[in-house]
């Protein structure tokens, strides 16, 4: 398990090197440590898959409460190992990408925080008790916040950083409450899956309350509908950070927590319908956001949110294993797509508005093909990477839900594919919209930027092999055909979308009405008006009115006046003072003697 500590060792080395102002090969340190950790976790995953080996490592005792001992350590079963491999893989590629993408002066800080974040996520998912779980959970948010602040010179980034952190920690309140409910049932501080599900018996109301609290607690990490964190704040992250933090690190933590919490409300139909409803709303809101925004990173976060919505829907309808598979299947190409978007932004010298791009298909052919293939993977196009995974998802929805649910899912997927089509068209197919000089001066895209994206693409294309073991038994012929048809309907949005946008050419497809709708869906103004402003006003009113004046000014002044009055009465004579003191002492002694008697 030593290899799991490599990321934190790297973070410490980089921190002290920065403090001591020593020059060290930052990238090499980060890369070696992350690669070492990834190689080890990958090997553990393979052993788990083929030999069913479970890894447990106790590092040191933490606390003994009520004769139960809690320890620091790592416990990895298959889910944790797959998730850890995925997280370290994305972290590694993000680091490689950042080497070429970021300015050298930012690299040290980026690598340090990235390694620390990767370790914190591992700490969280490898925990067996709440203390370690929350330590990893909160530290992950902290390092994600610090990564977001990488470009702190920009005021918008600082503001986004503050809101990002605030939203994350506020959403922890319901999550803590959900876990306290669990603790009150189990009587221990162990986290699922180290708590037997049978030992917790919820009534339907309790299960619903637990699920709602857990879902609200995870809403910010999974970018769910009505989450207080608008997507624009997440989009302020720089590209390498966005590709790791939003998809793998915080998203992975959110999915992991949901995966484990799900076991406790899986038997309650109402709760699962609620999950589906929130998932569908999130998917729809994400699609609208992706279609109505012009900023490249905002478009991507919209799509990301939409995909989290789809994953949640799968959780609700087809169970947690299918949901977890869906998460990995969707997020792997998505992280690559974000990196590819970063390459476009890099080539265009920080131009992030997709309506000012266009015509890049011919100028950046390699990038065009990679981005196109990743988009196909994201939407589950036939004969490309994730089609089999998507088919499995549809099949699971169809069998465990019904045809209506699967059709709804197909409609949402169609919308998502449509959003991808818009992005691809605007960036690569649309006529050139930039000034000629800008096009001619495209920054050369080196192998350092393309290689990580290509690796993600390769992994995404191989996903079908990874998820070959279907979540379901073989379907009957008619059902299989229906599932195939639904899968094709879902991904056909990409083709129809490309055709649609090609016909519209330069016209803006979504006007101000669409943008207003996006703002409305994000609910940010509502939160601002209902919670933030009243809370701040209340705090200010408290500060200026309640007590401050009375206790800090009036009370001391009254005492001072009293003292002056006494002094005036005694005329300030020392003998009078002594007389009064002696009288007081006499009375005290008399009282003591009286009590004693």
């Amino acid at each position, binding site marked *: 398990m030593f290899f799991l500590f490599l990321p934190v060792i790297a973070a410490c080395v980089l921190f002290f090197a920065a403090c001591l102002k020593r020059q060290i090969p930052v990238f090499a340190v980060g890369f070696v440590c992350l690669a070492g950790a990834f190689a080890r976790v990958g090997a553990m995953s393979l052993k788990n898959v083929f030999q069913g080996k479970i890894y447990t490592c106790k590092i040191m005792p933490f606390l003994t*409460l009520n004769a139960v001992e809690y320890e620091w350590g790592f416990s990895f079963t298959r889910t944790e190992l797959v998730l850890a491999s995925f997280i370290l893989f994305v972290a590694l590629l993000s680091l490689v990408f950042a080497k070429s993408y970021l300015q050298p002066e930012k690299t040290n800080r980026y690598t340090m925080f990235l390694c620390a974040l990767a370790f914190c996520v591992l700490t969280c998912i490898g925990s067996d008790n709440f*203390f370690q779980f929350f330590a990893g959970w909160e530290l992950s948010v*902290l390092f994600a916040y610090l990564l977001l602040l990488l470009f702190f010179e920009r005021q918008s980034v600082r503001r986004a950083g503050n809101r990002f952190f605030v939203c994350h*920690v506020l959403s*922890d309140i319901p999550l*803590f409450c959900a876990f306290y409910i669990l*603790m009150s049932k189990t009587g221990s501080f162990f986290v699922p899956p180290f708590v037997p599900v049978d030992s917790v018996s919820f009534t339907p109301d309790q299960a619903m309350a637990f699920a709602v609290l857990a879902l609200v607690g995870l809403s910010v990490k999974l970018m769910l509908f009505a989450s207080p964190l608008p997507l624009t704040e997440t989009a302020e992250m720089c590209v390498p950070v966005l590709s790791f933090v939003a998809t793998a690190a915080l998203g992975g933590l959110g999915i992991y927590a949901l995966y484990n919490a799900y076991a406790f409300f899986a038997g309650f139909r109402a709760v699962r319908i609620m999950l589906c409803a929130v998932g569908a709303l999130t998917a729809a809101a994400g699609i609208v956001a992706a279609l109505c925004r012009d900023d490249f990173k905002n478009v991507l976060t919209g799509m990301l949110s939409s995909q989290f919505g789809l994953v949640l829907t799968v959780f609700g309808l087809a169970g947690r294993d299918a949901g977890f598979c869906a998460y990995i299947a969707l997020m792997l190409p998505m992280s690559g797509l974000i990196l590819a978007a970063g390459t476009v932004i890099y080539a265009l010298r920080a131009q992030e508005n997709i309506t000012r791009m266009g015509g890049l298909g011919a100028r950046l052919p390699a990038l065009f093909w990679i981005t196109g293939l990743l988009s196909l993977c994201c939407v589950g196009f036939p004969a490309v990477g994730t089609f089999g995974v998507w088919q499995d998802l549809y099949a699971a929805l169809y069998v465990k839900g019904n045809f209506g649910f699967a059709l709804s899912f197909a409609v949402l997927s169609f919308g998502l594919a449509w959003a991808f089509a818009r992005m691809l068209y605007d960036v690569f197919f649309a006529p050139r919209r930039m000034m000629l000089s800008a096009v001619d001066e495209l920054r050369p895209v080196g192998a350092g930027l393309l290689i990580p994206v290509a690796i993600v693409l390769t992994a995404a294309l191989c996903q079908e092999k990874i998820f070959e073991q279907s979540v379901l038994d073989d379907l009957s012929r008619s059902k299989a055909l229906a599932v195939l048809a639904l899968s094709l309907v879902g991904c056909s949005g990409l083709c129809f979308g490309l055709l649609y946008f090609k016909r519209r050419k330069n016209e803006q497809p979504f006007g101000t009405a669409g943008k207003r709708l996006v703002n409305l869906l994000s609910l940010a103004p509502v939160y601002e008006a209902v919670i933030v402003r009243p809370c701040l006003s209340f705090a200010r009113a408290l500060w200026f009115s309640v*007590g401050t004046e009375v206790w*800090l000014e009036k009370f001391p002044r009254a005492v001072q006046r009293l003292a002056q009055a006494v002094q005036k009465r005694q005329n300030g004579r020392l003998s009078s003072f002594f007389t009064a003191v002696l009288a007081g002492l006499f009375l005290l002694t008399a*009282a003591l003697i009286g009590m004693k008697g």
Partner: protein
Amino acid sequence: MPHFSLIFIMLAMPLLGALFLLFIRGDEERTAGNAYAVSMLISGCVFLTALTAWAFFGAHKTDVFSAVFVNMPAFKVSMRVGMDALTLFFVLLISFLTLLSVFISRKNVKTKVREYMFLTLIAESFLLTAVCARDLFLFYAAFEAAVIPLFLLIALWGVERRAVTPYRFGLFAIVGSVFLLSGVFVLYHQAGSSDFNVVEAAAFTPFYRKLVFGLFLGAMAFKAPLFPFHFWLTDSLAEAPAAAGVLISGVYSKLIFYAFVRFVIPISGAEIEPALPYLCCWALATALYGALIAGVQEDIRFIAGFAHLTQTGLLALGLFCLTPESVRGMLFLSAAQAVSMAAFLLACGALWQRVGYVQNIVGVLSVFPYLGAVFFLSSLALLAFPPMPAFTGQFLIFQAAFAQNKAFAALGLTAVMLLYVAFFKHFSRFLFGGAGESPASGDDLGARERAAAVLLGAVFLYLALTPSQVFRLIAAAVDPLFEQG
């Protein structure tokens, strides 16, 4: 009377050291150096003695060390001192914080060093006597006497408004002491003795049980303090020199909790149970008020002051939940908070010394990397950000609160999260940069300050990673309270 010498030596050492300081002569620089060396030696020895006591302690639940403090048969006065698990816990805290205060004062205090050290040692002596006392009047006298050196430390070495702040501190302390003295008198009147053993064994009528609890609650409201009697605290923490701030926040404000665990709760017993939910509400109001007000402050020192108030509210919540877990959590939180506040005040003091102002300062990390890192970590510790030590204490308190009433836990969590918001609102600007005044280049933390930071870091790591031993000590202190019912 086993180990008679140990407890006596521990109580006498700071006083003797303080007296010795008065005889140091020479030019100012030499006097300062010698005074510092003597104080370090004395406070270090006291801390070592406390550690030795811990090593001797084992898992005893009664007084392991005891001695007669004052014995005057002619006046029928006999006062004892003793040390059990609860006392030892506070003795460790006081001696460590005093050592730290002395250590960091070398650079922070430039004038009248001898007098400063004298007052610090005197304060330590009084505080140690208060927790070791096994007599009500000795406890009261030592507790109140500690106000005088703390008052003088603020008045003479305070930062900006040192004419007003100590006055407020003294005033509120006196009002609190009126309640405390009244409570002590009632106990003495009913028990017929001021000895703890006699008082605890005495039979009190329900009326007097409630009265005692009410009077000590009044004292707590002013001394802990609780909303709305807290105004002296934020002022004092912002204005006091680092050493005084450490002692006020870490020890002085915690002693009233000690009094509750030591004798108020055992005496009041079941009579107070109906009032506990209301008291929990009061504690939560304090925590929420502190967190809310911290959110609208601009000066980082005042934010820290209100953070302290929030934590005090949570300590009170732990006490009033009155379960073994919550009281254990409360004691652990009080220790963790004391150490966190010490680290924060160390960082603030160092910053003040370098730039002269703390308000509206930006980009500390780029100019003073070590100081910025210490400031950041100490702030996280103050906020009880997991896995900082205070988190464990808070976690246990909230768990007990949740078992009592789910809303209590939710409100307590809200207060903690609002506190995060208050701090993090300023962090990006303060640490990294933005609109405001960036400090000119200057020296980063010196060797002595780094050593203090490392020492504190080691304590943090110990408390955060393996708090088992401290919890064992706390359990030995708390379990008898609940075994008695």
